[in-house]
């Protein structure tokens, strides 16, 4: 397939169209939105489903195969918050605290982007490795903690003191991120999947696997509505952040694909790892940042994650990373 055909196929996939419908819903000022409980239910379902399937497939993987990909994932978790911080500081000219806040988002990962990338490579006939969800859990939290540490350190240097209050908050945040919804469901699902194995998975597969793609359509409709509600903030955040919200995923995505390929992942797996690195968290990171770096402007990080980087990855980024992975694979 040519790059154009790939883009077109992606654009006409149900999930991308559902996302666009969500944006249009906001543009025409419709009052439609998914009930809050449906939105949370779907996100719980999607995370648990990824975990379960990942666990079942993990039970069929060997340590050797996973070791290198896991290692480069952790490397990505340590590098991307730092690169994000410096790019936001130098290119974006953001203040220290705002740059750290943004770095916490770009150093973590968006589960929906992960899912979309998996669906995409599957559609391209290059299904990713079954242990990718394991990598997802590895990438979620390190980036947040590193970026928050940068922020706290930079602030302390200006204030020349770390209050004991700060320490209390920090351990609370550490706990909160590690026991957050996505960690519990992903890790919990992985463990359940691993323990029960493929046979016991069979009877629950109709809900957790056959129903997955349809549920995703509903979820992306709401994601579109949520992103659409942020579109009006694009003016507030200005062109620099919008540009960096596209540049950063390209850089991180390319790095992810490259390291993925290098660690032995297939074209599909490298694409998904690239998409993970490229993505910005908008579930785990925001509350942690809000509590730890309250001076940071939430409009910056929420708009960049939700209204710039997520749509970019969904529509353009993932196919791009795929092309790059194919090219690397020769």
């Amino acid at each position, binding site marked *: 397939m040519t790059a154009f055909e790939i883009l077109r196929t992606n654009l006409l996939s149900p999930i991308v169209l559902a996302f666009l419908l969500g944006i249009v819903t906001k543009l025409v000022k419709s009052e439609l939105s998914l009930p*809050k409980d449906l939105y949370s239910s779907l996100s719980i379902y999607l995370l648990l489903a990824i975990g379960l399937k990942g666990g079942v497939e993990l039970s069929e993987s060997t340590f050797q195969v996973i070791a290198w990909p896991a290692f480069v994932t952790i490397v990505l978790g340590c590098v991307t918050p730092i690169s994000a911080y410096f790019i936001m500081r130098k290119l974006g000219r953001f203040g220290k605290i705002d740059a750290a806040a943004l770095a916490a988002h770009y150093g973590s990962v968006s589960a929906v982007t992960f899912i979309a990338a998996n669906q995409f490579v599957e559609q391209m006939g290059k299904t990713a490795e079954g242990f990718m969800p394991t990598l997802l859990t590895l990438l979620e939290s390190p980036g947040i903690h590193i970026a928050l540490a940068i922020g706290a350190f930079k602030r302390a240097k200006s204030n020349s003191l770390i209050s004991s209050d700060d320490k209390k908050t920090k351990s609370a945040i550490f706990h909160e991120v590690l026991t957050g919804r996505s960690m519990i469901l992903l890790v919990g699902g992985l463990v359940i999947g691993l323990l029960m194995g493929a046979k016991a998975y069979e009877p629950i597969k109709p809900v957790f696997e056959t129903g997955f793609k349809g549920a995703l359509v509903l979820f992306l409709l709401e994601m579109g509505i*949520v992103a659409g*509600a942020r579109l009006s903030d694009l003016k507030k955040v200005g062109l620099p952040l919008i540009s960096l919200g596209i540049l950063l995923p390209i850089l991180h995505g390319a790095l992810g694909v490259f390291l993925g390929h290098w660690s032995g992942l297939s074209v599909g797996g490298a694409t998904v790892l690239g998409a993970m690195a490229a993505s910005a968290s*908008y*579930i785990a990171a*925001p*509350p942690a940042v*809000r*509590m730890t770096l*309250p*001076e940071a*402007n*939430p*409009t910056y990080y*929420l708009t960049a994650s*939700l209204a710039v980087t997520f749509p970019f990855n969904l529509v353009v980024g993932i196919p791009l990373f795929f092309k790059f992975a194919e090219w690397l694979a020769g």
Partner: protein
Amino acid sequence: MKLINFKLVTIICEPVLSSSILTISQDLGATGFTVTEVRGQGNGEKSSGEIPDLKSKIEIVLEPQLALKIMNALAEQFFKNYSLITYSSDISILRPEKFERV
């Protein structure tokens, strides 16, 4: 029973603040709380979260002398960086002993 003058302190805030606020109010002597999920807008710019309008409304029944103390503590810690308002009103309760810490 006899009615006793008490205070009701109300806080409307970003959901992310609720648990800190409840801890502070408990530390200062409140014996309980009631939380309602609400939707709100003000003139603040700092609002956050995936659903920007979602707020928590916290209500606390208190001895009069505690009311201002808690409000001031919240003002000091949160007014600068967070989206919240707080106000107090006069109420009449029964059983004042129920709202006193042992």
